[in-house]
């Protein structure tokens, strides 16, 4: 029989306000095996831990149950404390009476009853706990960064700076991401290219960094410290090592009518292209959807003029296998396409554009060489209307948009308005907003400058309708402060569309077994205290893939993620989780069900000799688990039909004992 001590934490008033902690301690003191039961204000505090350690000593405890917050918070704390008293750390169990009880119940009687039940379940489990010993696993000293935007670039540079190898996998032919498309940046109005491209060059020149451009992550295996990743290098039909980036092919290619996504499809490029002048790597790629040679076999102009002989029409996708110790998701975002918002006429009127399209129309390297012209007739616009929150801050039921604030639109719209008024003083600029949100260093000053110094008309209210009439955009809107209906004849309308996570993120999250929220943003391990780590060990988050952010925030978070990666890669060994699977050979059928579901490849089979009846021997095929590779996910234990596979620390019997304890009430 175990000698179990039970410790009920008040968590200040977090638990004690809803759960009668004294009653729980009293009720649990009568459970079989419980020799000590008490409550304390903060069990995780130094004095709380001392209380626990003294009790272990005095009462010769063999098992401990702490009724407190989620084990994610303090399981490690309590295990360490128990270990200092010579108790095996895996003899400590947590009953979560905060997240699972006090925070979700209002009625004290109900909450107290549930706390007792969860306590009983933990006690029932401790009775079956066995001391476990953790092993060690090595760390591959290389990191993978998925996504080569400013977030991925900064993370990679910082990791490389610390002396570790980094690979960047970028699905486009160049790194740079969204920032490369932006014209100027708030609140200082420096040119995005001017500050980004030197960093891109740094990446290219850094010996520790390898760029897999035009590539995607195909599969991820392994675990923290030991990931094995398959990277698909998509065929670009140009040999990377040979191409000098001279760009001659991109001028001579006869296929001129290819939409140019870098310029938001506002102009065209050739079938062979370099996305923009400062691309890294500066290597051309052929768009197979448009290339006449690849489609019909007749052309070959680029191949003929390429002095370097870099064109290879036969190129195939290539899979590269690489090993990593840590992985950073930096998959970024896209602006929401507002084609569902018929009221703003985006799909029908070419002069209704999104903010990112406007960035290109104002950019010196853009389709208009930096002169702001209406897309429809290339004339100078005099009246511009900006609409805020298109697809942001929507009701949960609204399927067109997102419930969250996209955070960056208020600032970039103020920037757009200001830049237009500065360059074209003959314009009138209106901004329709719900709220203007400008927290951030020098942000509100920036917005006020737009209003006070540049005379931008800020109107609290939403635009109801935009229709095109005789070359003008008739904008109907309401001014909520004056209560008036407004009719504005505009030349251009700019929609500040919501930020949405890149479509590839969900697939990547699945491969990484990293969790996501309902909006497909990656979830952090702790919203406040572990914002750059995913709940999956060894997976880190950088940039907008975790939530909307502006550039300075993205860069800070990218460096923070890098710091976490460096901390991990600096270690030579990682302590393994001892809660791993093991197979009972006497029960194993050798059916391979476990092997098939194991995501880590930890299970192997071999033929073994067993004693049969009447002094015979039987050869049976049985499973064995490589404990250094097993991550204790438990998939095999449920796949096993005979119950031969079990998980240490979470055995079927332990779980059933918990269920029984709960059902006894």
């Amino acid at each position, binding site marked *: 029989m175990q000698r179990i001590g039970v410790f009920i934490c008040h968590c200040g008033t977090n638990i004690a306000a809803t759960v009668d902690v004294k009653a729980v301690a009293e009720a649990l003191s009568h459970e079989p095996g419980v020799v000590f039961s008490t409550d304390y204000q903060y069990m995780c505090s130094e004095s709380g831990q001392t209380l626990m350690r003294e009790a272990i000593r005095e009462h010769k405890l063999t098992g401990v149950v702490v009724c407190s917050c989620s084990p994610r918070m303090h399981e490690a704390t309590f295990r360490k404390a128990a270990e200092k008293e010579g108790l095996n750390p895996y003899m400590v169990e947590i009953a979560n009476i905060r997240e699972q009880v006090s925070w979700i119940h209002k009625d004290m009687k109900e909450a107290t009853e549930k706390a007792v039940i969860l306590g009983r379940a933990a006690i029932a489990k401790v009775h079956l706990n066995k001391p476990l010993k953790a092993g060690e696993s090595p760390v591959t000293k290389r990191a993978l960064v998925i996504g080569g935007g400013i977030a991925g670039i900064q993370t990679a540079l910082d990791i490389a700076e610390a002396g570790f190898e980094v690979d960047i996998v970028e699905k486009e032919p160049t790194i740079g991401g969204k920032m490369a498309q932006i014209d100027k940046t708030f609140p200082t109005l420096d040119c995005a290219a001017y500050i980004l491209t030197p960093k891109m060059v740094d990446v290219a020149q850094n010996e520790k960094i390898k760029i897999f451009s035009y590539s995607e992550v195909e599969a991820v295996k392994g675990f923290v410290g030991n990931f094995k990743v398959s990277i698909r290098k998509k065929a670009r039909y140009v040999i990377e090592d040979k191409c000098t980036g001279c760009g001659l092919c991109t001028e001579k290619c006869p296929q001129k009518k290819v939409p140019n996504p870098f310029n938001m499809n506002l102009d065209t490029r050739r079938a062979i292209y370099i996305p923009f002048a400062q691309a890294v790597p500066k290597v051309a790629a052929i768009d197979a959807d448009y290339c006449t040679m690849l489609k019909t076999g007749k052309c070959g102009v680029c191949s003929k003029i390429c002095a370097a002989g870099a064109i290879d029409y036969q190129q195939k996708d290539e899979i590269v296998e690489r090993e990593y110790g840590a992985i950073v998701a930096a998959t970024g975002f896209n602006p929401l396409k507002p084609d569902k918002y018929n009221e703003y006429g985006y799909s029908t009127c070419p002069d209704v554009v999104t903010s990112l399209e406007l960035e290109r129309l104002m950019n010196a390297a853009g389709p208009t060489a930096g002169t702001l012209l209406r897309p429809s007739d290339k004339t100078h616009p005099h009246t511009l209307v900006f609409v805020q929150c298109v697809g942001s801050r929507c009701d949960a039921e609204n399927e067109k948009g997102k419930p969250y604030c996209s955070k960056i639109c208020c600032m970039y719209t103020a920037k757009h308005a200001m830049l237009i008024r500065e360059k074209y003083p003959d314009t009138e600029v209106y901004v329709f907003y719900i709220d203007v949100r400008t927290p951030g260093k020098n942000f509100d000053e920036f917005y006020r400058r737009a209003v006070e110094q540049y005379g931008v008309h800020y109107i609290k209210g939403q635009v109801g309708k935009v229709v095109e009439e005789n070359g003008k955009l008739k904008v109907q809107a309401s001014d909520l402060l004056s209560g008036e209906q407004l009719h504005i004849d505009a030349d251009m309308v700019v929609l500040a569309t919501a930020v949405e996570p890149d479509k590839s993120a969900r*697939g990547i999250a*699945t*491969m990484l077994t990293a969790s996501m929220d309902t909006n497909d943003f990656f979830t952090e391990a702790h919203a406040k205290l572990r914002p750059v780590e995913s709940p999956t060990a060894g997976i880190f988050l950088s940039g907008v893939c975790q939530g909307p952010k502006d550039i300075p925030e993205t860069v800070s978070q990218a460096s923070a993620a890098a710091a976490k990666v460096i901390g991990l890669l600096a270690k030579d060994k990682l302590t393994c989780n001892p809660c791993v699977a093991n197979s009972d050979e*006497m*029960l*194993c*059928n*050798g*059916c*391979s*069900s476990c092997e*098939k*579901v194991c*995501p880590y490849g930890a299970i192997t*089979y071999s033929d073994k000799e067993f004693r049969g009846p009447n002094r015979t021997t*039987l*050869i*049976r*095929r049985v499973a064995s688990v490589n404990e250094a590779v097993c991550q204790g996910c438990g998939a095999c234990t449920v*796949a096993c*039909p*005979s*119950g*031969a596979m079990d998980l240490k620390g979470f055995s*079927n*019997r332990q779980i*059933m*004992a918990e269920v029984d304890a709960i059902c006894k009430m």
Partner: protein
Amino acid sequence: MQKMMEKRALELLGDGTVNRVLGWSAGDFIYDVTPAVFKTAEEVQDKFLYNDFCGANLSKYLVKESRKEGKILVFLKPCDTYSFNQLIAEHRIIRENIYAIGVECFGKADEEKLRAKGITGITGIEMKDGTYTVHTVYGDETVKAYEVMADRCLSCKSKKHVAYDELLGSEGEVVEDCNRFDMVEKLEAMTPDERYEFWRGELSRCIRCNACRNICPACTCEQCVFDNPNSGVSQKAAVNSFEENMFHIIRAFHVAGRCTDCGECSRVCPQHIPLHLLNRKFIKDVNTFYGEYQAGENPEAKPPLGKYEKNDIEPGEAGGAKA
């Protein structure tokens, strides 16, 4: 057919290709057919039997037999070949030690249905053009095959042999329109309360004879969880009749995705519980949520419940019981 099978068995025994034959022999009555292993030519000549009562699926016997010394000859009906393949996929039988001969099957007769028709004292049966001629001690009787055929044969999913070394007769074809999920659909249309009543009614007859488990080709565990005192469930099933009913639910979960729908569980149930319906519900759900899948059709195929794909259905999308 019996003559041809006997001839091949004698030849293969004679030339040493195999040292045993797995087939059927008659019990006390001609319809009371039982699987049997024959070791000599004499035994084959004496006792080997193949008729329209030979419904038993022989593949499960190979779990033990294929581990013995020498090769064994087995006769497999089309539906048995699916179980055979599934057992190969699960590494439960050793293919190299088996010589499999596929035999045609047009559906097996149900002795109880014959008896219900007033046909007793049966001494033999023959089928021709969809009609059984039943020899009895009172003279011959004829009856339309579909009237007395086993239920599982009336909704036969496939007359195709998916595994064999040799065929006697044609390879056969998959039955496209077998309507085997009709009853499952009826059960799905019920309210949860109605369904609960239906199953309580059926399962309350269970006497826990374990015949369903012992016959099931998917139930080949070295030790069944219900026989394992450490599993924590073996004794639970004896607590009360409701817990006992859970035996069948648990068993259905254990064979989910692996059950080939051979129908042996319902055939051997002395209490006539339609156990196969539990398995068919799983098969139908697997088909709906993961695409058409027939366990045992291809031993190389990855089982839908044992693999993961990115476009797999999310648990929330599958929906629960209709409230």
